[in-house]
């Protein structure tokens, strides 16, 4: 079905409380953002704007939203430095037959004033966003990269839901790899590996050795330098 009339005309560029048509995807995006957080620590939705595009059997929502993080006193726990409360996020959500799938999430702290496009301030806040102008066929491209990943590493998933979840993790990991790439001072290349469908937490828990941080193990004597006769 074509996108709801009020969306097409909904001033998709105007900030404001989510219009009824955006409410569903906006709430889903917030739910995914707060996933795993205890009550009282969850962010709440602020202003939303967005647009919708047909994609296959469903609709692809591109949302920009401000999220308000609750006050956080413990710097060791806070997602943000205590002084910053508002996040500016962009989400891409695929709505197929009433089922939502998060394809992309990108968030960063901003000043509490939300600026609009005309003075371009906010794009400078998320440089990666402005550098990557979100080509229209982004989702199609990601789906194809994910398909190659499944073939290369012979990956299968037990249910469709698991596959959808893994696709959203994969897409989010591609963003992470892109950031690691941008910040690397060497010649390393980062991208798709056999671990690309694991969340950071899964990867850390399964493959790494956090025990090494806790201690240094049995004390050993220092080796003599090699040139020591």
């Amino acid at each position, binding site marked *: 079905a074509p996108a709801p009339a009020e969306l097409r005309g909904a001033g998709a560029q105007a900030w404001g409380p989510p219009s009824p048509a955006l409410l569903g995807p906006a709430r889903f995006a917030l739910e995914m953002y707060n996933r795993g957080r205890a009550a009282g620590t969850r962010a709440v939705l602020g202003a939303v704007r967005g647009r919708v595009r047909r994609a296959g059997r469903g609709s692809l929502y591109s949302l920009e939203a401000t999220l308000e993080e609750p006050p956080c006193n413990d710097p060791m726990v806070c997602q943000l430095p205590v002084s910053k409360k508002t996040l500016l996020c962009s989400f891409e959500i695929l709505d197929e037959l009433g089922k939502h799938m998060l394809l992309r999430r990108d968030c960063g702290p901003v000043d509490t004033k939300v600026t609009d496009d005309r003075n371009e301030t906010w794009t400078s806040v998320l440089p990666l966003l402005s550098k990557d102008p979100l080509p229209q066929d982004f989702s199609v491209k990601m789906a194809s990269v994910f398909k190659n990943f499944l073939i290369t*590493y012979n990956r299968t998933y037990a249910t469709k839901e698991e596959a959808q979840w893994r696709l959203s993790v994969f897409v989010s*990991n591609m963003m*992470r*790899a892109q950031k*690691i790439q941008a*910040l*690397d*001072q*060497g*010649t*390393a*290349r*980062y*991208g*798709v*590996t*056999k*671990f*690309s469908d*694991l969340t*950071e937490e899964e*990867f*850390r*828990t*399964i*493959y*790494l*050795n*956090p*025990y*090494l*941080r806790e*201690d*240094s*193990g*049995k*004390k*050993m*004597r*220092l*080796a003599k*330098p*090699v*040139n020591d006769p």
Partner: protein
Amino acid sequence: APPTWDWRSKGAVTNVKNQGMCGSCWAFSVTGNVEGQWYLNRGTLLSLSEQELLDCDKMDKACMGGFPSNAYSAIKNLGGLETEDDYSYRGYMQACNFSAEKAKVYINDSVELSQNEEKLAAWLAKKGPVSVAINAFGMQFYRHGISRPLRPLCSPWLIDHAVLLVGYGNRSDIPFWAIKNSWGTDWGEEGYYYLHRGSGACGVNTMASSALVD
């Protein structure tokens, strides 16, 4: 230290192994070091058992993690290491069924190595591959090339992965450590990771150690 060195081309390094879904990197880092020490001091390259360490090294935590220094001590106390073939890898902890008669190698001691990367390179070139522990930041998505993450992102204080230094050199004037990982050959450069050398990148110089074989 010589400008470049690679124990892989000198027969002191076994094939890249795969720890599977288990936090047993510490065991692979130690067996890799002992394999090198046994080869350089006793002349035979044997692939040694990580499963024996998972099952019988009671000081460490098998798939939940462990320390190379504890593992050296366990090898000494047990009386040696069996080969990979005799005590093959499962990727999860079982009851210990080590038998001293089957042990093919032993170690006499273990030492902590210098945190000075030049001295470390000199030690490696003269004595053999070195067990180290690093911060694994970025390694989930590493494909190839010399990695050099920003220091705040790859803090030397947040060590969480043990690996094996097998060589060092320069690529286009960028100094690197050649690191044998234990995630299989379908990760990184045929299972190897290349990390910037000389800047303490990701804490590579903070937990260097080796067994000693008479």
